[in-house]
């Protein structure tokens, strides 16, 4: 560095130069500030105006009314009832036990409810309100409203409760609603609607599957609030939009009749209009009462339902699978005819059939039978020998085309579709070759054959029409075009005649309709649930309930011009003709002559100890005493 002697003159020049620099820097900062402000206020004005508005205006959501579910005639299946409700807001509670104790006294809460509230309060995540009562009588509501200042955390409001006039008879069909869980709240991106006390979302069944239609659009009271949440003024409200109404193909009266006629059995009935595939009834009993669920159910109630061996929490029409038993025989007979078997050819039934070193039994010694007799009297030996002769490859496709193993597009999450086996499936699934005994088992709907009750009803519909009937449940779904099945009309007429014979003079003679001029065609089935010893065979009542055979029946009416098809599977009901066929008979009767059917129902209910409600109350009481739970004294709901 060169040493220059710096003088005052130098210093003055340096000062001026650096002042210029400093002034320039200051001007640059000033320019930057103005530019930045212009960028914020002009270029990004819209964005910030939006943010400022969303700061200023808060929306207090007003829950929409849930859409109705109605039957084919407009009769309500799920509706809303105006109600008063009381909730606990966990975040605002100061002394939980004290508040609950006071509510218990004010609302006369049974111990079951107190236990549920305490449990839900412990599990709640702060934001989630816990329902104390959904359907509170006005006097109690008023009493609580007056005391609200002394009960921090308690919220009393007016709202709507879901109401199912059909009670437990529609439980498995519609499912139920309930307050959103923490997981559901997260899944919907923290939708604030779900936090409002009294807002229920579909949890099961149609209520869940049709949620998007039923929920509607929440409205809201727009308010101006400060950063600390203080309300400044109310702005114009945004109206809510009620959920859409969903019309089902169900006939609510028929559905309820069938459910009641099931009695104490564990059973499902499906009725289909064969002309368009409409499902007219599909009860699964016993069931839960969805009215109790919407308020949250007590642990005891839940335990009672889940302990029940009649599985009230399972929709048996769609989720349970059973061997088809002999109901498969009409379709098998069609397959045999298709394969060229002469319907007049005689097989001699000795009551037993030898294949290799195994003996397959028939339920009795039928003697010489042709195809007609084999269907009418349900002779197993005939089908063993004929099906073996034709081979499984020609049987399975026909059975499948009749609806077994087929998937139907219905608005339910947990459908199960069962299996119709064939050699290729056997190799894929079990890695073994198809054997003769597999054909023998399949020929009478045992072995690997598994179906659900809806499929059985579809099979009846297709046998009735010869067309590919496809079931539908929602009126809004277009009717699927019914294509012709690959069967000869002549074969079909023969099978229908045989099925008429089953009801007229065969195994289901007890199921003749008490109607003039209307005759039913059908087929019984008895599906083994385990290997019965020879001595147990034919004894359908004395065995342990769980070990009894399933009782099946499918049929259609009128046999000469089919309109309705009906199928039922009674779990462990015993002989098909004794339990399942009369159930179908009464259900079908209801379609034509309600008086007669209701009289039959009344006689039936008297024979089993009263109406559904009476029996349920008795059952609950006995369960509670057996489990050491105090009896229900009063119900607030």
């Amino acid at each position, binding site marked *: 560095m060169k040493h220059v*002697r*710096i*003088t*005052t003159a*130098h*210093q003055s020049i*340096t*000062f*001026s130069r*650096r*002042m210029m620099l*400093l*002034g320039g820097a*200051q*001007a640059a*900062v*000033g320019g*930057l*500030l*103005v530019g*930045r*402000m*212009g960028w*914020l*206020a*002009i270029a*990004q*004005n819209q*964005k*910030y*105006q939006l*943010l*400022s*508005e969303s*700061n*200023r205006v808060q929306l207090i959501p007003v829950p929409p009314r849930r859409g109705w579910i109605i039957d084919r005639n407009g009769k309500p299946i799920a509706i809303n009832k105006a109600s008063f409700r009381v909730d606990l807001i966990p975040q605002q509670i100061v002394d939980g036990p004290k508040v609950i104790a006071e509510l218990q006294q004010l609302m006369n809460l049974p111990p079951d409810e107190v236990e549920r509230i305490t449990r839900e309060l412990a599990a709640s995540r702060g934001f989630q309100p816990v329902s104390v009562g959904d359907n509170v009588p006005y006097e109690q509501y008023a009493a609580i409203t007056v005391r609200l200042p002394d009960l921090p955390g308690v919220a009393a409001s007016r709202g709507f409760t879901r109401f199912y006039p059909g009670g437990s008879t529609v439980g498995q069909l519609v499912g139920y609603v309930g307050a959103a869980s923490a997981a559901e709240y997260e899944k919907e991106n923290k939708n604030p609607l779900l936090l409002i006390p009294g807002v229920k979302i579909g949890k099961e069944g149609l209520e869940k599957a049709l949620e998007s239609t039923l929920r509607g659009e929440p409205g809201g009271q727009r308010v*101006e*609030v*400060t*950063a*600390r949440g203080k309300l*400044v003024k109310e702005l114009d409200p945004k109206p809510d939009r009620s959920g859409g109404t969903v019309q089902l193909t169900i006939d609510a009266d028929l559905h309820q009749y069938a459910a009641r006629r099931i009695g104490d059995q564990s059973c499902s009935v499906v009725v289909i209009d064969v002309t368009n595939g409409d499902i007219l009834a599909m009860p699964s009993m016993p069931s839960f009462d969805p009215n109790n669920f919407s308020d949250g159910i007590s642990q005891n109630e839940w335990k009672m339902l889940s302990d029940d061996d009649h599985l009230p929490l399972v929709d048996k029409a769609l989720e349970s699978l059973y061997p088809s038993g002999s109901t498969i025989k009409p379709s098998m007979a069609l397959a045999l005819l298709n394969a060229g078997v002469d319907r007049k050819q005689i097989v001699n039934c000795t009551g037993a059939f030898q294949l290799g070193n195994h003996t397959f039994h028939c339920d009795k010694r039928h003697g010489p039978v042709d195809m007609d007799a084999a269907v009418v009297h349900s002779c197993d030996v005939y089908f063993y020998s004929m099906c073996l002769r034709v081979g499984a490859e020609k049987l399975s496709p026909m059975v499948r085309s009749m609806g077994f193993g087929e998937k139907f597009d219905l608005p339910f999450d947990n459908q199960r579709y069962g299996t119709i086996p064939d050699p290729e499936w056997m190799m894929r699934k079990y890695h073994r070759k198809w054997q003769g005994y597999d054909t023998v088992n399949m020929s009478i709907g045992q072995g690997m054959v598994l179906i659900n009750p809806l499929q059985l009803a579809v099979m009846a519909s297709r046998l009735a029409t010869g067309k590919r009937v496809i079931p539908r449940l929602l009126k809004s779904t277009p009717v699927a075009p019914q294509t012709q099945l690959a069967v000869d009309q002549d074969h079909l007429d023969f099978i229908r005649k045989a099925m008429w014979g089953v009801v007229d003079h065969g195994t289901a003679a007890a199921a003749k309709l008490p109607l003039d001029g209307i005759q039913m065609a059908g087929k019984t089935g008895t599906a083994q649930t385990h290997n019965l010893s020879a001595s147990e065979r034919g004894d359908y009542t004395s065995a342990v309930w769980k070990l009894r055979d399933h009782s099946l029946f499918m049929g259609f009416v009128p046999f000469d011009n089919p309109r309705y098809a009906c199928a039922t599977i009674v779990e462990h009901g015993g002989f098909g003709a004794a339990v399942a066929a009369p159930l179908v008979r009464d259900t079908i009767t209801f379609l034509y002559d309600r008086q007669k059917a209701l009289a039959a129902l009344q006689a039936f209910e008297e024979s089993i100890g009263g109406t559904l409600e009476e029996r349920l109350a008795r059952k609950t009481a006995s369960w509670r005493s057996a489990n050491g739970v105090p009896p229900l004294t009063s119900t607030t709901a």
Partner: protein
Amino acid sequence: MITSAIIPRPLAKLPWRLIFIVSGIALFGLIVLYSAAGGSVRPWAMKQAVVFLGFLSIAVAMSWMKESTIKAIAFPLYGITLVMLVGVEGLGFVSKGARRWLDLGPIRLQPSEFMKPAIVLTLARFYELVPAAEIRKWRAIWPALALLGVPAVLILVQPDLGTCIMVLLCGVTVMFLAGLPWWVFAAPAAAVGVAAPIVYSMMHGYQKKRIDVFLDPEGDPLGAGYHIAQSKIAIGSGGIWGKGFLHGSQSHLQYLPEGHTDFVFATMAEEWGLVGGVILICAFAAVIRWGMRVSQSARTRFGQLAAAGLSATIFFYVSINLLMVMGLAPVVGVPLPLVSFGGSAVMTVMLCLGLLMALERQQRTVSRLI
């Protein structure tokens, strides 16, 4: 030019243009404070008006000080302020987590505020004493560094990062104008670049957080980034013409924190828009330019350096606050002088202006009214 026949000579000799601009800024500030209080002179506007008028009178009174007097008090003022800063450490009054105030009976003093003009005067005086030939020598540098460093450290540990930065910047500006070699500024700048991470690790939690938030304000919009986010919303939503007097929702609904103190500019911009903002920035620019002119036309080296340093003090006040409010600098707690509610900033700025007016008076013999 107001004729001296009507107005008494001493009044006519005041720099009226400056006083008009400064009063205009303060009046605008009072209007904003009135709105920030929801359309009320309480609790801020009235108090602020009294404080402003008080300090304006003091500043005007100071304008009769002679340059020689200012020179003479430079070192004692610095010494007393330094003693008070040490005193704050020992006896200080703790408020909002920082030990900044000294409680002297009826008045509470924030000695770090005095340090801003004091360091400017002291360094100006120091470099006046340094002969021109010595300016590039080490002995012209280390005393200045010591004079600057000791108060800066004392203020930093209060902790008051904003004032510390301001004091450093004011001092460095004087040193820069005094003609110190470039490496004196380049080397520390490089050192800061290296040391920044180390200093960062030694900072207080809230200081660290402010820097984190500045670097990534969207990272925590509801937490520490809330100030900057809400301030930007207020400024951005104001648009060109603003939402109108008393119609700012961000400030009135209390979404904007510190809307009457550090973030008063956002409160203003929301209601007066870009137009109000540009006018305010221009007014401040005029004040600073006036000060820089005083420096340029000063006849003594002390006058040059002191006037430039005092103008720079006002400049740093305004620019750091605005950069912070607009999201271009971390939130360091520097108010907008004359507009933000609070006496300290008004006091400092009016002290600076009073000294500038005194220096300016020395430069002329006749009144310069226009």
